[in-house]
């Protein structure tokens, strides 16, 4: 009987493997499953004959009790599983709360009463399941009404809202609407923010002296930053730096995006006067450029020599580390929520050395490179054929690549945020890691809108953060291989002792 059962089992298993591998019910699978099944059946019949003993009056109650016990276990197991399924209890253990709404989204959503979300969909589109789930989650927490509309059944609405494809969402609030072509929490958040249309303040930006262009949609342009600022409610005003003799009013903050040429003296003086009168400045400066802003920042204790920070912590092979993945922040409203696992990326930054002009001033090293970072005095060496090496006297330390200062002068408060890099806020890098949050939160702080400081939901919700290669390797040697080694040693000792005894 055992031989028959074994042969049947092997044949049936071979048939199943062939089906599993090919997804095709061919002759091989058919013959094996058929013969295997017959052999198993025959073995089972033979087994039943042997089990006749179990049917004796003495054995019957024991067997019945046992079978009943198993039946109870089975019913209990299925009932418990079904109840758990019905309860729908789930715990989101993703680091970034992938399946939970960000506070920023909820706040923007709860601010809008009587908003309607229409999902235009093709019934065959698999993406609508996730979008519907997202909208329903929002509707459960905010005054939002969700409706579905099959595509091509409302051509007039599709034309009116500019719906181009399935899985598009139209958010309507009063007579205003926003069409979202690729709905994610991030894009819905931005649409809600635009619908909210609350004026946050006026920002003045300089142009004409090689400053970053907020109308340039190319990779190194800043149109994305400008759009993000407008989404958050700011009105942007552009002023030619050559014509700047007074900062125009109203201006809540002056934003200067890395001038490539030296600013005219009247412009620098106008900025200084305006700051001393209690103004706010968000300055982005680049390595290898002298614009006159550096001296101005130096006067406020944020000196930045023309050098570049090299941080090998996240450098790839054959890279010296001119690009910085920053994971170190000092406590400040600008860095609220950022931390070891919420990094920012700087494609090349100059350092800051902080020294308080007055004892009451408050200067903070907002963003720092890693403890292995060092300063390359001549940024031009980055373009040399041989990569520069740190000299023997070079000190490796946390280097400041962004700083914030708060000064009180004659009962007026001055706020300055300075970044040693502008490219991190360019179109190419604005949505990398948490760059957008850092740049926008800096503006919010400078304009004294601390309540608006938040971490925004990401347009793309996937984890693309790098892991330091060296620490991964050291963890492998330190823990990954050490633990098995210790265990094997313990096993070896136990084996030797067993032999000796």
């Amino acid at each position, binding site marked *: 009987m055992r031989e028959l059962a074994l042969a049947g089992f092997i044949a049936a298993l071979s048939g199943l493997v062939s089906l599993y591998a090919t997804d095709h019910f061919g002759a091989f699978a058919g013959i094996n499953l058929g013969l295997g099944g017959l052999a198993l059946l025959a073995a089972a019949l033979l087994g039943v004959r042997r089990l006749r003993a179990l049917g*004796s009056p003495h054995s019957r109650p024991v067997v019945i009790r046992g079978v009943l016990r198993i039946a109870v276990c089975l019913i209990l197991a299925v009932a418990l599983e079904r*109840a758990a399924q019905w309860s729908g209890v789930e715990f989101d253990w993703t*680091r970034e709360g992938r399946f939970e709404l960000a506070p920023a989204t909820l706040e923007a959503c709860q601010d809008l009463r009587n908003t309607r979300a229409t999902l235009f969909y093709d019934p065959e589109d698999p993406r609508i399941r996730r979008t519907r789930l997202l909208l329903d989650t929002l509707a459960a927490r905010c005054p939002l009404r969700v409706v579905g509309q099959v595509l091509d059944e409302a051509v007039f609405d599709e034309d009116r809202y500019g719906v181009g494809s399935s899985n598009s969402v139209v958010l309507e609030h009063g007579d205003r609407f926003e069409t979202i072509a690729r709905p994610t929490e991030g894009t819905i958040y931005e649409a809600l923010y635009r619908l909210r249309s609350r004026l946050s303040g006026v920002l003045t930006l300089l142009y004409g002296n090689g400053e970053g262009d907020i109308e340039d949609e190319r990779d190194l342009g800043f149109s994305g930053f400008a759009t993000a600022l407008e989404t958050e409610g700011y009105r942007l005003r552009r002023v030619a730096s050559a014509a700047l003799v007074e900062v125009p009013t109203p201006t809540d903050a002056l934003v200067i995006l890395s001038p490539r040429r030296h600013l005219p003296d009247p412009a620098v003086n106008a900025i200084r006067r305006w700051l001393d009168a209690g103004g706010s400045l968000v300055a982005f400066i680049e390595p290898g450029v002298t614009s006159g802003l550096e001296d101005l920042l130096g006067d406020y204790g944020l000196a930045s020599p023309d050098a570049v920070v090299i941080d090998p912590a996240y450098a790839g092979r054959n890279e010296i580390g001119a690009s910085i993945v920053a994971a170190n922040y000092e406590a400040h409203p600008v860095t609220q929520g950022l*931390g070891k696992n919420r990094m920012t990326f700087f494609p090349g930054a100059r350092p800051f050395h902080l020294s308080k002009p007055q004892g009451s001033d408050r200067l903070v090293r907002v963003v720092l490179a890693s403890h292995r970072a060092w300063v390359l005095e001549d940024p031009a060496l980055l373009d040399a054929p041989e990569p520069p090496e740190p000299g023997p006297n070079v000190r490796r330390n946390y280097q400041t690549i962004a700083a914030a200062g708060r000064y009180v002068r004659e009962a007026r408060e001055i706020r300055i945020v300075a970044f040693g890099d502008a490219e991190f806020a360019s179109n190419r890098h604005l949505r990398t890691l948490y760059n957008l949050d850092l740049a926008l939160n800096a503006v919010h702080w400078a304009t004294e809108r601390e309540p608006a400081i938040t971490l925004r939901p990401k347009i793309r919700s996937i984890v*693309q953060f790098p892991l330091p290669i060296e620490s991964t390797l050291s963890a492998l040697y330190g823990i*990954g291989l050490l633990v*098995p080694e210790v*265990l094997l040693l313990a096993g070896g000792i136990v084996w030797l002792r067993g032999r000796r005894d």
Partner: protein
Amino acid sequence: MTPLLALIRKEFASLFGSSLAYVALTVAALVTALTFFDHLRLYNQVLFAYASTTMGGFASDSIPDYINLWDLVFFPVMEQLGLTFLAAIPLVTMRVFAEERSRGTDELLLSTKLTPNQIVLAKFFVTFAFVVLMMAVSFIYPATAITRGGLGVEHLAAVFTGLTLHAIGLASIGLTCSAFSRSQLVSAISGWAIAFILWDFGWMQPFVSEGVANVLDAFSLHPRYGAFSEGVVSLANVVYFASLAIVAFGLARFSFDLRRVG
């Protein structure tokens, strides 16, 4: 000390008195460490290749969606380890009941004050504890690497919770097979076979109706533990593995009844 505690103590002593337990722990820790490191290295290399200046810098738009920690590390690691444990766990469970039966020491156990329920409970408890220890040992390196990288350990904890429950499910199947067999080899092979059959019924979908496919899917191991790789711990999936243990307990207990009358 109660007889149950004494039996649990004896089971632990016999488990850790043999080098097999240490070898199993070593293999689990080593395989996990190497698999995890390999995927982590690959993820970093691909990410940095796309992040290099020639490929457009670290701009998120220049990095394809599939290069992320879930798809390149957590998910494949879980798949590989799940299959590895499918082969390894029956080796751990094969001796638990079968050895006692082949030596006849189960009769001795039954002649003590211990009830069959207590005997089964003690053996299940010790085996599950060993499986949890095995997973905890395996978890140390991935947790260290991920935490050092500043990525937080929450998602990884979900992955290892899934793997631990999967291992407990496999141990339940293995223990049932061991309870019905005298031979450790038969116990291990049948443990593998049943786990393999229960692994995933997805391939049967083209041959059965939708209703049957849904029922079969609900019984499959793979979709249940695979769901943890998303970082979501669902109560239904936890209960599924607990249910496997409950049913296995009932079956193992039944094997004692059959021995009395067989």
